[in-house]
């Protein structure tokens, strides 16, 4: 390895365009966001956006009139929306992309979207069927008051004077009432009396009967399920529920892990199911103030504020006094806990007094700054200002980038969080056990007439055939169990080896020996790869960033193949500066190596081999290929990096294949400025990729397949309605006669779905090449799962592929096979990876640009994998 730990860091996926404007820190707007503010103040009658309607397509068999389906969604009242929202954790996005029906637009998969090749494998998945009562219908009533009653509490109180009529199982938001049973009459009138002796006529009118798979019903099941989790004394943090009573402590890092569950109930291919997975919440038993103090001692006065901003902005904090999480958007150094704000009743109070009075929380440090969080919650039309948080009263949650890069910490964590299949299944089963054993939960379920299967869903998947790896003149198989061919490729020549005729090796005096070792070992390993190599121009520098930059500027010429820099530490600033120089003003491929990675004699040969391979790719070489039967096809990969720290810029990496065997790539990136849509930049990228393709092939591709990674939950709609049309526009602009087939596939790595295969009596991870396109897929999509990689510990995560646009008319089988083939082509890993190689390249590119370069790299490099 080149030892770039930072490359392991994951760009945390956060959808662009969510950041609100700069905070106008003013007392008037602050008070509304303060946690004490009673939630009951919302106006129940305000019109909210109608929830998305799950199109016309319903699960197999149970067709129902379409118009009915449509009205369901639109008639949910604002108040009920809120009920669901607060139970969901206060966000208003549709995380499951429920309303987006893309399959209906793809003609050739109307009948079937399943493939057929490969051998059948028995699988189970972390899904439980919802076995609701036959003909289970949720009855929706409108409740009217005469005279009109305003307050929601009052409306509820008046209605529930008639509990004998309504029953104890109900959900009411102030105007819409849901019941699991039907009232005798379509319209029921009852009378209640207010405490002032006023008689009120209440009219309860049936407005809808919701079949079990209507979107409202689904939303409703989720709400009920969340209630159950709460009844089990699980704590809600964010979207998931955790068990606080049995935490795992990792004192070395001041971390605490809570085991918990994710859950969602959705309409899947054949039935409504609960998908639940084990989740671990990493909490930190230090407050933001503690953290600030230790940072202060680490970095000193001068760099303190910058360091705080860097470490804290973007992190999620948990308040001590209530159970809310906030994202830190800013730190206000001018303010302190003694500042005052205006309360709901108009009086001014300082934060110190407020927290003392309200929560008996002492704030001891009166000079600490305050944290600002832009609340994303929308409460009716109420103006929502930024929330002010006191560092001393906030716990840090999750891991920072720095912690993720801490190898030891991640190792310590993995012991607890990476559960092997057997154990994972056991943990998932525990949730179902809890539910079955808790009387009040059972009662609640019975009242609603809901029940769940007690066994994991089982079904059949397919394991597609392994691929032959092609190198110069030879083809070989690899062990499918490990999905890795590092052994097999030993001694085989690369498809295209680039010579190292003229190259630089830069090192510090201290690392002279290491530089020599690297040089000698490269001489040893390159011949077997087929790489020609001259001795490098060896340059010794001082261990300062400027020294490296000066030397590089002086020595790099247009003939330089590559510059290799040996760095004495993993200091990011030095690495960034070198990369920035060599990717922009002085565009040549570069390779940074941390000295320590070469310090162990027993591993030096294998590390030098890896470095040689990487250098070869960076210079435009090719390592291996797989057989690609499709001709004239251009494969595109897109991934995004969202820079939460500096400037909040989003960067999309765009990678397109250039040749028939799909071994060369054109790489560009689109930097999204403020207020710009990423898709505009992608359009320009596609245009230049087509031009480049033409240069290479003298014709244009007749088929374009786009793998789009980096799509957040709930963003599918934008993709379908905005990004895909932009691609089509771009193709149109190329020429009148040019009409290639376009396929757009959304790639999702972070899914809660897990598959288990029973092999030899124990539960194992399904083998690489496992394809699932039944049961756990969604009826309204042309989607499938592939397990492409092998993992050594823990459970393998399948990747979800959703074909959202397809005029290519390739059979599902072929799309699945092609996708799997593409997972073999990532040159930084001699094995199969989780996503198609172009997505991983795009990720690498976007990450490098977002982390180190911060501007578009020089286009002279765009035909090489310079960012590997």
């Amino acid at each position, binding site marked *: 390895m080149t030892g770039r730990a930072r490359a392991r860091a994951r760009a945390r996926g956060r959808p662009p365009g969510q950041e609100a404007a700069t905070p106008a820190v003013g007392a008037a707007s602050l008070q509304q966001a303060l946690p004490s503010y009673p939630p009951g103040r919302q106006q129940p009658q305000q019109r909210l956006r109608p929830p998305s309607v799950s199109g016309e397509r319903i699960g197999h068999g149970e067709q129902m009139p379409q118009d009915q389906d449509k009205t369901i969604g639109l008639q949910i009242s604002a108040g009920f929306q809120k009920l669901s929202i607060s139970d969901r954790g206060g966000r208003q996005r549709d995380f499951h992309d429920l309303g987006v029906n893309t399959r209906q637009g793809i003609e050739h998969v109307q009948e079937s979207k399943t493939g057929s090749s490969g051998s059948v494998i028995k699988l189970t998945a972390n899904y439980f069927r919802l076995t609701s009562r036959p003909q289970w219908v949720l009855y929706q009533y409108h409740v009217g008051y005469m005279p009109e009653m305003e307050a929601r509490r009052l409306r509820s109180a008046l209605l529930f004077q008639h509990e004998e009529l309504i029953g104890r199982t109900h959900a009411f938001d102030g105007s819409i009432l849901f019941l699991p049973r039907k009232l005798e009459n379509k319209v029921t009138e009852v009378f209640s009396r207010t405490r002032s002796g006023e008689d009120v006529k209440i009219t309860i009118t049936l407005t809808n009967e919701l079949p079990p798979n209507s979107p409202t019903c689904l939303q409703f099941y989720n709400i009920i399920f969340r209630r159950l989790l709460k009844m089990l004394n699980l704590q809600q943090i964010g979207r998931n529920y955790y068990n606080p009573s049995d935490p795992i402590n990792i004192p070395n890092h001041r971390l605490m892990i809570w085991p918990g569950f994710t859950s969602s109930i959705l309409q899947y291919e054949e039935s409504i199911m609960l998908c639940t997975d084990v989740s671990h919440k990493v909490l930190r038993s230090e407050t933001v103030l503690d953290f600030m103090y230790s940072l202060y001692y680490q970095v000193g006065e001068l760099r303190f504020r910058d360091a705080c901003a860097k470490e804290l902005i973007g992190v999620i904090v*948990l308040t001590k006094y209530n159970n809310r999480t906030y994202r830190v958007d800013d730190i206000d150094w001018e303010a302190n806990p003694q500042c005052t704000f205006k309360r709901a009743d108009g009086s001014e109070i300082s934060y110190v007094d407020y927290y003392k009075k309200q929560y008996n929380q002492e704030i001891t440090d009166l000079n600490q700054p305050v944290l600002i969080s832009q609340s994303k919650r929308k409460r009716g039309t109420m103006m929502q200002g930024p929330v002010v948080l006191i560092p001393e009263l906030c*716990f840090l949650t999750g891991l920072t980038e720095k912690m993720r890069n801490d190898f030891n910490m991640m190792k310590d964590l993995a012991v607890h969080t990476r559960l092997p299949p057997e154990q994972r299944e056991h943990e998932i089963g525990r949730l179902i056990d809890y539910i079955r054993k808790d009387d009040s939960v059972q009662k609640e379920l019975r009242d609603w007439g809901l029940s769940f299967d007690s066994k994991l869903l089982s079904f059949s998947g397919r394991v597609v055939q392994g691929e032959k790896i092609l190198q110069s003149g030879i083809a070989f198989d690899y062990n499918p169990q490990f999905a890795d061919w590092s052994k097999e490729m030993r001694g085989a020549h690369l498809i295209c080896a680039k010579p190292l005729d003229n190259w630089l090796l830069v090192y510090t005096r201290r690392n002279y020996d290491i530089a020599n070792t690297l040089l000698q070992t490269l001489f040893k390993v390159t011949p077997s790869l087929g790489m020609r190599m001259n001795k490098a121009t060896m340059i010794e520098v001082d261990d300062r960033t400027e020294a490296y930059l000066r030397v590089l500027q002086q020595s790099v010429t247009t003939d330089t193949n590559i510059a290799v820099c040996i760095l004495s530490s993993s200091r990011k600033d030095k690495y960034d500066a070198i990369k920035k120089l060599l990717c922009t003003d002085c565009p040549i491929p570069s390779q940074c190596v941390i000295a320590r990675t070469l310090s162990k004699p027993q591993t030096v040969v294998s590390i030098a081999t890896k470095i040689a391979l990487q250098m070869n790719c960076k210079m435009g070489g090719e390592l291996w290929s797989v057989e690609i039967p499709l001709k004239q096809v251009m494969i595109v990969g897109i991934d995004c990096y969202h820079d939460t720290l500096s400037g909040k810029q989003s960067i999309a990496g765009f990678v397109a294949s250039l040749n028939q065997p799909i071994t060369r790539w054109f790489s560009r990136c689109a930097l999204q400025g403020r207020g710009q849509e990423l898709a505009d930049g992608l359009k320009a990228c596609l245009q230049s990729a087509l031009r480049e393709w033409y240069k290479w092939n003298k014709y244009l591709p007749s088929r374009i397949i786009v793998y789009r990674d980096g799509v957040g939950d709930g963003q599918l709609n934008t993709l379908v309605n905005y990004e895909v049309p932009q691609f089509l526009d771009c193709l149109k602009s190329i020429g009148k006669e040019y009409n290639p087939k376009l396929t757009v596939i959304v790639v999702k790595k972070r899914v809660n779905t897990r598959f288990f295969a029973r092999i030899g009596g124990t539960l194992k991870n399904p083998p690489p090449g496992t394809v699932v396109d039944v049961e756990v897929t969604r009826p309204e999509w042309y989607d499938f799962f592939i397990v492409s990689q092998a993992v050594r510990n823990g459970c393998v995560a399948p990747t979800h592929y959703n074909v959202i646009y397809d005029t290519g008319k390739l059979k599902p089988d072929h799309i699945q096979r092609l996708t799997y083939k593409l997972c073999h082509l990532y040159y930084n890993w001699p094995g199969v990876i989780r996503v198609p190689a172009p997505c991983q390249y795009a990720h690498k590119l976007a990450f490098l640009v977002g982390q180190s370069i911060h501007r578009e790299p020089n286009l002279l490099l765009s035909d090489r994998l310079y960012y590997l």
Partner: protein
Amino acid sequence: MAKNFQEQFTGIFTPPLYKQRYQFVKDIVGKYKPKKVADLGCSDCTLLWMLKFCSCIEVLAGVDICTSVMKEKMHRLSPLPGDYLQPAERRLTITLHHGSVAHKDPCMLGFDLVTCIELIEHLEESELEKFPEVVFGFMAPSIVVISTPNSEFNPLLPGVTLFRHPDHKFEWNQAQFQSWALETARCYDYSVEFTGVGHPPTGMKNVGFCTQIGVFVRKYPQTSQSAHSDKSTEAVYKTVFKAVYPSLKDEKYLQNAVISEVIFTAQIIKRSMLDHLVSEREEYNYDATERKSEFQPSMNCFSEDLGKPVVEKSMEPFVNRDVVYIPLKTIFSFPKVNQLCGTFEKLCKLIADKVTLSSDGSAMMLNTEHENEEN
């Protein structure tokens, strides 16, 4: 019981009257510092929720006749993540019972303060008759707070014709409430003082407070536990909710807290020692690959960070063959560890088997190898 809508929505009072009632109870708690508090007719548990933040209270109980209203928001009485992340010193147990104030249940014995906020006016005549015997005779807490509407104020509330709430069985004027309260106090050997919240408009002082409150204080000393056992009563209440808050008084949480603190402290010491070591090496003997077998850093390099512990010579940590030794005495001298454990023996007991100690058990051992191993 339910907050009276009238008071709340017409906004006659700022803050709303129900908040003033709760604040009144909070002030009583602040004054008398009771350890065990019960709220009879706890409704949606708002008062209990407010009281859970009062650090003197160790036991909180709520009783209501209606489970569904209790259950509606009872989960906010559960401990928060923060309570687990930094367990408090005090113990706190919150329990909700389903039952009637006309019935005795042994779980209600031994309380210091019992509050009945807007409760009695919801009681049927038969229940009201039994109420004093249950609260004052059986539970016999040191303090009882009873609030109820003052009917003399009703004409000033717009829209109120008969009672403020349809479920009210009666609303008393000041004389009625006071005579009932005085009689009850006399009968059970309590003293009572009258006050209220919700001041009448100026010039109408005679009307009295909108909500009248009686504060009863027991005149005889605490009955012993044995006295309670005489009152052997059958349990009739049903527990609907129970939350036990993590507390440092609980060995499990204390041990976790101590170990966390010890290991974290030790890590800081180790890191600063090693940093020091490295910079020293770089400065003076750059080419020497041999590490000095024993190295005594000055405490200055880290003592600032940790609140300047008092250090004796023998307590200094040292490095020997890739192992950092940190004497437990040093660790014990750090304020947070010291505060948590109290005694050195306690520290030793709590960390035994949980951290690696030197053969004589006097120092904690940390491997330095760990640090260099990064990939």
